[in-house]
């Protein structure tokens, strides 16, 4: 890999991707983006990012693969159990006072977070009154989320998370197994709308009582974080909830004053 001028080449590549494919990665965190692109270039056998750009522009199979690298699809059911316990014990009782609830899960990846909420809301008797908007920029991930099938070997860890998150029954009550996979009960997604939506380029589409956006903002630079948090503040009803990833905070954002802390350690905020 030739690293001279690599920052310049990255800017040009991201500009090219935006112009040609309308995915806007131009304001993602620089350090992680650089690592990902340098490694991807290596994997594609390119000596420079410019060489990768050439392939991204002219070989139709390259961009979808690169998109896979640029959108890190790591997720778990009930990731950070204490977060979901706080949602169950502290947030849901307040949501239950609304006649109907809209929940926006932004950056839902392959759906683990969606099923976590659906199960939790069902057990709390709120799912039938809820609409979940599950959005992401990666269409294959959305398709997998909609299918709702996860590898069997992930289930023991998911079950443990579920229990630690205050699960009321057994996780296996919510799925059936077969063909090496666990298929979640389709009624869990009867109230879910899956949609392609980018926090970088799209606008608010509904008023919601809660936004859950976990481990997505860490991809973004400050300016793009501000944009995303502005969308959330605009989408939330007054006193609506915002849940972030366990190491994310609104504190360093220009939008910070639009939120108040609700659960400091679990990173749950309310719209001011």
């Amino acid at each position, binding site marked *: 890999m030739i690293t001279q001028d690599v920052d310049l080449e990255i800017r040009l590549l991201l500009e090219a991707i935006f112009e040609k494919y309308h995915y806007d990665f131009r304001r993602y965190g620089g*350090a992680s983006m650089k*690592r*990902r692109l340098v490694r991807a270039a290596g994997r594609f056998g390119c000596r420079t990012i410019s060489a990768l750009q050439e392939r991204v522009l002219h070989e139709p199979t390259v961009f979808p693969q690169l998109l896979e690298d640029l959108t890190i699809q*790591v997720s778990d059911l009930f990731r950070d159990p204490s977060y979901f316990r706080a949602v169950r014990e502290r947030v849901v009782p307040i949501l239950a006072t609304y006649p109907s609830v809209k929940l926006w899960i932004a950056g839902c990846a392959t759906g683990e977070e969606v099923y976590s909420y659906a199960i939790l809301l069902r057990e709390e008797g709120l799912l039938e009154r809820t609409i979940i908007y599950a959005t992401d920029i990666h269409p294959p991930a959305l398709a997998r989320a909609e299918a709702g099938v996860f590898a069997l070997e992930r289930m023991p860890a998911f079950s443990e998370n579920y229990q630690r998150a205050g699960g009321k029954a057994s996780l296996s009550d919510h799925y059936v197994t077969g063909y090496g996979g666990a298929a979640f009960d389709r009624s869990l997604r009867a109230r879910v709308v899956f949609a392609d939506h980018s926090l970088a380029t799209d606008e608010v589409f509904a008023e919601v009582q809660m936004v859950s956006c976990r481990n997505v903002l*860490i991809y973004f630079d400050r300016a793009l974080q501000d944009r995303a948090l502005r969308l959330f503040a605009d989408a939330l009803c007054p006193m609506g909830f915002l849940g972030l990833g366990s190491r994310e905070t609104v504190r360093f954002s220009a939008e910070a004053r639009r939120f108040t802390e609700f659960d400091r350690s679990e990173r749950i905020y309310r719209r001011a």
Partner: protein
Amino acid sequence: MAEPRIVVMGGSAGAIEALLEILPALPAGYPLPVLVVVHLPGGQQSMLAEVLGARTPLAVIEAEDKARATPGTVHVAPPDYHLLVEADGTLALSVDAPVHHSRPAIDPLLESAADAYAEGVVGVVLSGASADGAAGLAAVRRAGGLAIVQDPATAWSPHMPEAALREADPQLVLAPAAIRAYLVSLGGTEVRR
């Protein structure tokens, strides 16, 4: 003779012992930010800041996304996130794939620091049982920074320092007590390289 602007350190097995020999000597008001990655098994990772903080005059905190790398503060990588530093001096976390089977890993921290601070980086690879950190320290060296490796003879697990010695051609190979003295001297009035 570039001014050092940031200290980045990493290790795995045996690194806590080394850090407990080094960090407590850094005086309150230490003029550089210190960023630390230690591989630890799941549950223990969350204890790291507490363990180090209890013995150190500096504030030891778990790194938060977009927080500023602050002089006189030790920022440790939280469990299950890589820690990186951006060119504007803010910290970044990522859930990208593990590196050398580890998240957090040392290479992303050292490489990003080399990128962001070039010759202003002091990189330290401590005791550890994988080859993580070697590529990162090599990047620090290439960028003109100062590469320090714990003397493998003093390391509980010499694998990591040995890999860094092979790959990064460090300027200094030191026992923890000497690393401590060196880092303390960086905070003195006459900062010397």
